């Protein structure tokens, strides 16, 4: 049981920084680009929010499978195919949680707007410097929300992981799958413990997000 909890926390812990690193440039581009492409990219990034996780998992399985070019690339780099491995779970989790991170970060960048960046430019800050020293700190509430939501979402993942990770103890058997297993094998006591823990965790996360937003004076749209 603790193995599943530990695996889940590790997965979410690894996924969150990767997620933020991937989301930040996308969110920045979406917030600042006037290109028509932005609407399309925005929609694609939001897809995981609407799609059934099994659909997403199915396509990921195919895209990352040993026959696909991506699968061959990852096999060459990692020595094993991505599906049914911890690394595969990280990739799937990042894609699945993308809308939960891109959206708040994008909104935070939009709220920052041009004005402080123009001020920074007239004070000799080059674009990258202005991004790091002005845009990022001013968008901090968005990053806090993105990290908390991304972490929580990964902890609660089920469908995608079942499709792409299977049920390998210590490698891909995360909390939500463990609960499913316990219920199937009628181990109600353990299922209760994990499920109750998840309820408490979810409550704490939402409380944390609300409190941070209030404290940082930022509300999501």
């Amino acid at each position, binding site marked *: 049981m603790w193995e599943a909890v530990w695996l889940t926390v590790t997965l979410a812990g690894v996924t969150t920084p990767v997620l933020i690193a991937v989301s930040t440039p996308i969110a920045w581009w979406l917030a600042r680009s006037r290109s028509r492409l932005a609407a399309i990219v925005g929609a694609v990034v939001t897809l995981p929010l609407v799609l059934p996780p099994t659909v997403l998992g199915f396509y990921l399985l195919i895209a990352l499978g040993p026959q696909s070019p991506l699968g061959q690339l990852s096999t060459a780099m990692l020595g094993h195919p991505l599906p049914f491995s911890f690394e595969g779970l990280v990739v799937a989790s990042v894609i699945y949680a993308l809308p939960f991170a891109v959206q708040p970060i994008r909104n935070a960048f939009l709220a920052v707007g041009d004005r402080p960046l123009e001020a920074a430019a007239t004070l*000799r800050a080059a674009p990258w410097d202005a991004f790091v020293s002005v845009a990022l*700190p*001013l968008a901090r509430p968005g990053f806090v929300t993105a990290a908390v939501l991304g972490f929580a979402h990964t902890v609660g993942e089920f469908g995608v992981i079942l499709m792409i990770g299977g049920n390998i103890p210590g490698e891909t058997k995360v909390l939500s799958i463990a609960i499913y297993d316990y219920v199937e094998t009628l181990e109600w006591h353990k299922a209760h413990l994990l499920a109750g823990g998840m309820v408490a965790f979810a409550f704490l996360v939402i409380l944390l997000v609300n409190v941070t937003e209030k404290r940082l004076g930022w509300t999501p749209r």
Partner: protein
Amino acid sequence: MDAAVTATAAAAGLTAAFAGRLGGFELDVRFAVPARGVTALFGPSGCGKTTVLRCVAGLTRLPVGELVVDGEVWQRGRRFLPPHRRPVGYVFQDARLFPHLSVTGNLRFGHKRTTTPGQPVAFDEVAALLGLADLLDRPIGVLSGGERQRVAIGRALLSKPRLLLMDEPVSALDRISKNEILPYLEALHAALDLPVLYVSHDLAEVERLADTMVLMTPGRVQAVGPLADLLADPSLPLYRLPDAASVLDGVVVAEDATYGLSMLRVAGQTLFVPGRAGGAGSRRRLRIAASDVSLWRGRAPRDSSILNVLPARITGAKPDEVATISVFLALGREGDGPALIARITRKSWDELGFWPGDQVHAMIKSVALIDAPQGPAPGQRPRAPDRR
């Protein structure tokens, strides 16, 4: 760009030409001004003053643009220095302080990034000049409007700009904050050898601060020249304003303590001004409302209660809408001094038979010192931050 604009670029000055459409608004401006003192971009709201300033800073890029500052090309053809590589300080109308930094953090932002060679601007001197010493540790959120603008000006100065751009820095402030900040601007003007482009739609502000004026109509430049000349130019609309006035720059020569008067030298003439104008040698700016000037034909009257009676020559006259006529004068017996406007009745004009070229005496009923004393200005006397 046309040859006239390019030719003047070699001289020490600022030559600008910007043209293009910007969201349905067409701008086509060109002007050359000295790169010293305060140049006001003056015109009605929405005439493109801010756009011109943004073009100078490189924040807005129009299809046609040329900008040469002190012989250095910042923009011409395909050459376009991005904003962060232009040594300007920009004071925005809305201050735009960084809310995630303290006052000190904001001030240091440009200070540590300056690219202008030589000694950095002394932090303490700027803080003293703008009265910021007590604000340094405060977060931005608790500052008043006037305080914010002072910090914004300090932040811009500390980046050691070679050109200071100010976009209506006091227009968003209430009258009290405005009166609190204008003396600081005047102190700046006096203490720093830094050319300033100052956008304003408030003539009173321009009269207080500017040396040169770029007069704008929507999308165009109508006239460029020394402030005093434009105010008294019969071909421009400024003299027609109900509160039309002339500005003169004078030097304090003495103080008459018995009567509480100060004597100022203006173009070889002496003017009496009520109140203390500062120590001898102080430079002050005088404002004389056109309606406070009347004309006297012949020799100076000896038995008048009016103290300031100056010889002048009529250079022109234009009737106003109803009963009055605006008379353009040049001070001095030979009419070689600065310009002065008088507003008298048409009846007097006709009855006294005035005509351009006539020698007259201008009787000035009231003279106002419009700038703050440049002696020990707000706080202590600032030393010009070393700009070399």
